[in-house]
C-alpha cells in the first residue's frame, strides 16, 4: 500500500484535468461525482496508507516516483516522504477536504460555475497533498505555489464583481512577499548545504552549523517569512480577511484543511533549523502571540460573520505559531488538527446561515435563528465551544497543551502564558458574541426583509440537504471528541527531547479552565441575556460611545489599521514610482536588444542574395577564413 502514495495527489489532479478538459460540458451530477469522488478516493487511500504505516512501526518511508533524467551527476527526481507528521496532514487534508467537497455539492448546486469550482478545489487539494508529501523543498515549493494559485482562482471565483478580483489579487500579492522570502531561503540552503532534500538538510544542518550561527538564523528567518505569508500571521495577515470574497466552502478549505496550515507544517517539518536558530524560534513565538491577540481584538469588532471567523483563524494559527515557537511541535500539530475540525464546522455552518438568508453576511441583520436554523445553530454551538476551548471539547485539550508548553518556556514563560490566556478570553468573548447575536435575540432579518422590496419573498428556509448536513454532523462529532485522538508525531520530533515534565500548580489549571467560561459569561451578559438585555445594551453603547471605546472600535474594526498603513507605506509609493517611471527605463534596454537583433537580421539577410556565384565564392571565402584561423590563431 505504501508504494501507492503517488496516487494520493494523482486522484484529485485527474479530477481537475477531467473537469477542466470538458470545460463545464458535463452534467452536474457527473461533475460533482468526479469532484467529490476523486477526493474521496484520496481519503480512502490515505486512510489505508496511514493504517499500514502506523501498524508497520516504521519511522518513515520514502517512495521514489520518477527520475526525470540523469545527465552526468545531475539527476533530478521526485520522491514522496511519509512519516507521522505527513500522515496527520494527509488525513486532515483529504478527510476534511472531502467533507467540504461533499458540502459544496449542496452549497454550489445552483451556481453556473459548478464544474469550474470543483476543478479548482481538486487542484487545490492536489497541490496541498504534494506540499505535505514532498521529500525535497523544490517539490514542496511546487505544492506551495499551486496552493497560492488555487487560492487566487477561488477567492476570485465570482469574478463578475471587481471587488472579488481585487481580494484575489491582494491574497496573491501579499502571500507572494512571503513566497519570495522562502525562495531566497531555499537558495541559501542549497548554496550552503548543497542539497534541498528535507531529510538531508535536517541531518546536515546541525553538523555544519552551530547553534545561533548567522547562516542558520538567516535560513530559518527566510523560511519563517514564507510561513508567515501563507499562514496569515503578522505582518502578512492582511490578505486573509479579504479572502472571504470567495464562496464559503472555499473559506472552509483555506482555513481548515489547506493553505493557512502550510506555514505551520513548513516550520514543523524543518523544526531542526529553527532549533539551530533560537532567536528566530523565539520570534516565531512572539509573532504568534502578537497575532493571536491582535486578531482576537479585531474579531470582537467585526460585523461580517465570515470576517469574524477569518480573524479567529488568524488568531488560532497564532496559537500554533506560539506552540512552534516554544518548541511544542506536537502540540502545534495537535491544535492544527482540532482547529481543522472546528473551523471547518464553523465555516460550513456559516455557509448554511448565509445561504439560508440569501447571502446576508451582517450578523446584526440576523438574530433569533436558533429555531429556524437548528442544524446551523447546534453546529455553531459545538464549533464555538471547541474554539473557545470549553472543557472536554477538542480545542480544550490542544490549547491546554500549548499554554502549558508556553508556561514552561525558560525566559518568557509567564509572559507568553498570560498573553495566551488573554487570547483565550478574547476567543470566548468574540465567538459567543457571534453565537448570541446570530442565534438569540430579536430577529432583525425579517425586519429588514420587510423594509426591503428585494427580500419580500425571502422566507427563511434552512438549506440542508443530506450532502450539507452530513459533513456538519461528522465535523461536529470530531470537534467534540477529536481531542481524544493522539497525533502520531512523536517519532518525528523524538530527537527534540521530551519537554521536562512540568507540574504547574492547581491554580494555573483552574485559571485555564475558568477564563474561557468567564469570557462566555461576559459575552452572555453583553449580548445574550434576556433579563439583562437593557443593561447589556446600555453597557455596550456606553463602551462604544466613550472616546477610548470609539477609537478602539474603529481601530480594531479596521484590523489595527494595517491595510491603511500598507497602503500608505507600500502601495502609494509604488504607484507613484510606477507613474514616475512610465517610460520604463529598464525596458529601454530590452527594446534596444530587440532592435539590435532586428538590425543584425537585416544585415545578415543581405548575404542571402540568391546568386549562385556569390554562394560559390562565399564557400571559398569561408574556407580561406577557416584555414586562416586554423593556421594562424
Amino acid at each position, binding site marked *: 500500500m505504501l508504494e501507492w502514495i503517488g496516487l494520493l495527489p494523482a486522484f484529485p489532479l485527474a479530477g481537475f484535468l477531467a473537469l477542466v478538459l470538458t470545460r463545464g460540458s458535463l452534467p452536474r451530477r457527473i461533475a460533482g461525482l468526479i469532484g467529490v469522488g476523486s477526493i474521496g478516493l484520496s481519503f480512502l487511500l490515505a486512510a489505508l496508507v496511514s493504517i499500514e504505516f502506523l501498524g508497520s512501526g516504521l519511522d518513515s518511508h520514502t517512495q521514489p516516483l520518477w527520475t*526525470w533524467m540523469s545527465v552526468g551527476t545531475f539527476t533530478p527526481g521526485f520522491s514522496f516522504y511519509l512519516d507521522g507528521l505527513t500522515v496527520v496532514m494527509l488525513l486532515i487534508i483529504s478527510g476534511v477536504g472531502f467533507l467540504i467537497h461533499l458540502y459544496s455539492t449542496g452549497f454550489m448546486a445552483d451556481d453556473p460555475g459548478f464544474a469550474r469550482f470543483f476543478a479548482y478545489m481538486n487542484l487545490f487539494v492536489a497541490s496541498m497533498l504534494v506540499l505535505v508529501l514532498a521529500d525535497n523543498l523544490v517539490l514542496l515549493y511546487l505544492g506551495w505555489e499551486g496552493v497560492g494559485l488555487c487560492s487566487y482562482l477561488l477567492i476570485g471565483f465570482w469574478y463578475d464583481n471587481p471587488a472579488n478580483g481585487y481580494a484575489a489579487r491582494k491574497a496573491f500579492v501579499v502571500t507572494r512577499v512571503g513566497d519570495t522570502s522562502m525562495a531566497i531561503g531555499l537558495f541559501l540552503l542549497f548554496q550552503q548545504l548543497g542539497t534541498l532534500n528535507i531529510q538531508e538538510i535536517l541531518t546536515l544542518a546541525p553538523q555544519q552549523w552551530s547553534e545561533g550561527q548567522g547562516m542558520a538564523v538567516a535560513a530559518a528567518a527566510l523560511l519563517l517569512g514564507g510561513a508567515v505569508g501563507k499562514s496569515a500571521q503578522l505582518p502578512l495577515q492582511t490578505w486573509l480577511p479579504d479572502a472571504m470574497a470567495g464562496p464559503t466552502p472555499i473559506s472552509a478549505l483555506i482555513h481548515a484543511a489547506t493553505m493557512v496550515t502550510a506555514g505551520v507544517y513548513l516550520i514543523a517539518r524543518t523544526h531542526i533549523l529553527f532549533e539551530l536558530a533560537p532567536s528566530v524560534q523565539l520570534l516565531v513565538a512572539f509573532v504568534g502571540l502578537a497575532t493571536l491577540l491582535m486578531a482576537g481584538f479585531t474579531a470582537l469588532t467585526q460585523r461580517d460573520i465570515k470576517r469574524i471567523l477569518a480573524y479567529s483563524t488568524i488568531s488560532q494559527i497564532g496559537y500554533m505559531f506560539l506552540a512552534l515557537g516554544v518548541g511544542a511541535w506536537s502540540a502545534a500539530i495537535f491544535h492544527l488538527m482540532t482547529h481543522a475540525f472546528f473551523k471547518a464546522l464553523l465555516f460550513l455552518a456559516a455557509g448554511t446561515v448565509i445561504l439560508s438568508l440569501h447571502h446576508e453576511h451582517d450578523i446584526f441583520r440576523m438574530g433569533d435563528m436558533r429555531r429556524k436554523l437548528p442544524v446551523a445553530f447546534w453546529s455553531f454551538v459545538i464549533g464555538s465551544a471547541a474554539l473557545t476551548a470549553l472543557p472536554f471539547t477538542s480545542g480544550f485539550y490542544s490549547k491546554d497543551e500549548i499554554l502549558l508548553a508556553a508556561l514552561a518556556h525558560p525566559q518568557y514563560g509567564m509572559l507568553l502564558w498570560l498573553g495566551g490566556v488573554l487570547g483565550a478570553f478574547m476567543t470566548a468573548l468574540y465567538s459567543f458574541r457571534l453565537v448570541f447575536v446570530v442565534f438569540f435575540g430579536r430577529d432583525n432579518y425579517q425586519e429588514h426583509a420587510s423594509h426591503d422590496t428585494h427580500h419580500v419573498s425571502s422566507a427563511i428556509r434552512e438549506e440542508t440537504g443530506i450532502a450539507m448536513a452530513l459533513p456538519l454532523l461528522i465535523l461536529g462529532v470530531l470537534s467534540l471528541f477529536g481531542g481524544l485522538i493522539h497525533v502520531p508525531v512523536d517519532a518525528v520530533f523524538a530527537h527534540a527531547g521530551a519537554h521536562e515534565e512540568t507540574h504547574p500548580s492547581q491554580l494555573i489549571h483552574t485559571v485555564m479552565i475558568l477564563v474561557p467560561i468567564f469570557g462566555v459569561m461576559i459575552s452572555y451578559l453583553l449580548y445574550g441575556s434576556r433579563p439583562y438585555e437593557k443593561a447589556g445594551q446600555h453597557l455596550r453603547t456606553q463602551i462604544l460611545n466613550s472616546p477610548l471605546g470609539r477609537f478602539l472600535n474603529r481601530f480594531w474594526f479596521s484590523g489595527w489599521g494595517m491595510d491603511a498603513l500598507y497602503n500608505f507605506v507600500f502601495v502609494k509609493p509604488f504607484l507613484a514610482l510606477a507613474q514616475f517611471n512610465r517610460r520604463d527605463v529598464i525596458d529601454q534596454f530590452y527594446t534596444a536588444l530587440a532592435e539590435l537583433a532586428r538590425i543584425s*537580421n537585416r544585415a*545578415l*539577410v543581405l548575404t*542571402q542574395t540568391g546568386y*549562385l556565384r*556569390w554562394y560559390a565564392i*562565399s564557400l571559398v*571565402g569561408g574556407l580561406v577564413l577557416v*584555414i586562416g584561423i586554423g593556421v594562424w590563431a
Partner: protein
Amino acid sequence: MTFDQMMLLLPLIIVTATPVITMLMVAVKRSHAVSCILTASGLLLALLSLLIVVRYPLQEVTPLLQVDNFNIFCTALILLAALAVTLFSYPYLCNLEDHQDEFYLLIAIATLGALVMVSSTHFITAFLGMETLSVCLYGMIAYPLHREATAQYPMEASIKYLVLSAVSSGFVLFGVALLYAQTGTLHFNDISVGITQGIADGPGSEYFVVASLLIITGFAFKLSLVPFHLWTPDVYEGAPLPATAFLATVGKVAMAALMMRFLSVSGVLDSPAIINVLTVIGVLSILGGNLLALLQANLKRLLSYSSIAHMGYLLIALMTIDSAITGDGSLGGEAVSFYLTAYVIMSLGAFGVMMVVSDSAHERDHIGHYQGLFWRDPWLAVIFTAMLLSLAGIPLTVGFIGKFYIFSVGVETAQWGPLAAMVIGSGIGLFYYLRIVYRMITPLDYDDPLPVAGIRDVISHGILLVLLVALVVLGVVPGGLMLLLESVVQSL
C-alpha cells in the same frame, strides 16, 4: 566475407534490393500506390532486419564498413525518418501531373547512401555514401520539374545544390588526398597514428591541419554551418516538401553521424587549431542561424535557418567526443545522439504538419497560411505547437532534454563562448518559434479552407500522433533512451 558479416549487412542489402524491385515493378506496371508500398515495406523490412543483426557478433566488415551499436542506432533512426518521409510523400504527390514512382526510387537510394555513410570508417565508403545521397537529392529537389507553374524554384534549388555540393565534395576529396599523402591511410582509425609519424618525418603539422580543415569544411557544408550555409534556405524553399523533410532529417543525421565517427577516432580534435575553428563555426552558426530566422515569413526558410542554429548547438557536443578531451568522451557522444533523435522528431513533425496541409500543386509554406489554425484544425495546431516548443527547447519536450544534454556537456568542458551563444540564440529562437504559435492563435478573418483529411491521410496523421507521443514521452521520461545511448556510444 563470412556469413556472419553478410548478416551484419542485411539492412544495406535490403535497402539496395528495394529500389531494384520497385524499378522492376514500374517496368511492368506504373502504380503510385504500389511503388510507395514497396518502398515503405523495403525500409520497414530493413528496420526489422536490425533485430537479426544484433544477434550476430558486431564487427568490422572488411576495412570499409563497421557495424557496431552506434551504427545500428543511426541506421534505425535513418530508416525511421526515411519511412516517415515515404509515407508522407504519398498524399503529397497524389496530384502531381507527372509520374510519381521515381521519387520513391530516389528516396530508397538516398537512404542507402545515408546508411553507408553511418557505417563507414573509411574515406572510400564515406565519400561513396555522401555522393550517393547527394546525387539522389538533386533529383528529389528538382522532382516537380515538368509542372510549368512550379518548375522554376525546384530547378533553381537543385542546380544550386548540385554546384555547391560538388564544390564541397571537391574540398573533401582534396583534404582526403592531403591526409593520404601524409599518413598513407584512408582508414579513420589509422589516421591518428599516421599523423604522429607524418608530423615527425613529414612536412609538419600545418599540412595536417589544412587537410583536416578541408574535410571539415566539406562536412560543415552538408550540415549547413556558417559560413557554408548560404545554400540552405534557397534549397529548402525550392524543394518539394518531402525532399526538404528528407534533406533536413536523413541528410543531417547521416552527415552528423559520419562527422562524429571521424572526429572521435581520427585524433583530429587533439589539435587546438581545429578546436578553435570548430568553436568559431559553432558560435557563428548559432547566432547567424537564429538571427536570420528572426523575421522570416516563409516557414521552409525559417526552419532552414533554425536548422543552421541547431547544427551549431550540436557542434558544441561534437567537439568533445574525442576521448582525449573529456576522459572517455561518452557524455558528448550521448548528447549528440540524443540531440539527433530529438531533432529528427521535431523536424519531421513540423514538416509533417506542413505536408499534411500541402500538396504538390499548392504548398502552404507561408506563415500566413497557418493563421488561425487553432480554430480551423486544433489537432494539427496542437502538434505544430508542440514541435515548435520543442524546437525552442521548452521543458517537458524532447527538445529541452536534448538542449540540456548539450548544455551540460558544454559546461563540463568549459566552452563558455559557445554556451553564451547558445543562451542568446535560444532567447532569439523563442521569438520566432512563438511568433508562429501566435499566428496560429490569431483568428483568420477570411476563408481559406484546408484540405479535408481523407482516408489516404490516415497514415500521415498516425505518424504525427506517434511523433507527438515520442516528443512528450522522451521529454518526460528520457531515462530509457539515455541508458540505451550510453551503451551505444561506448561502442565507438
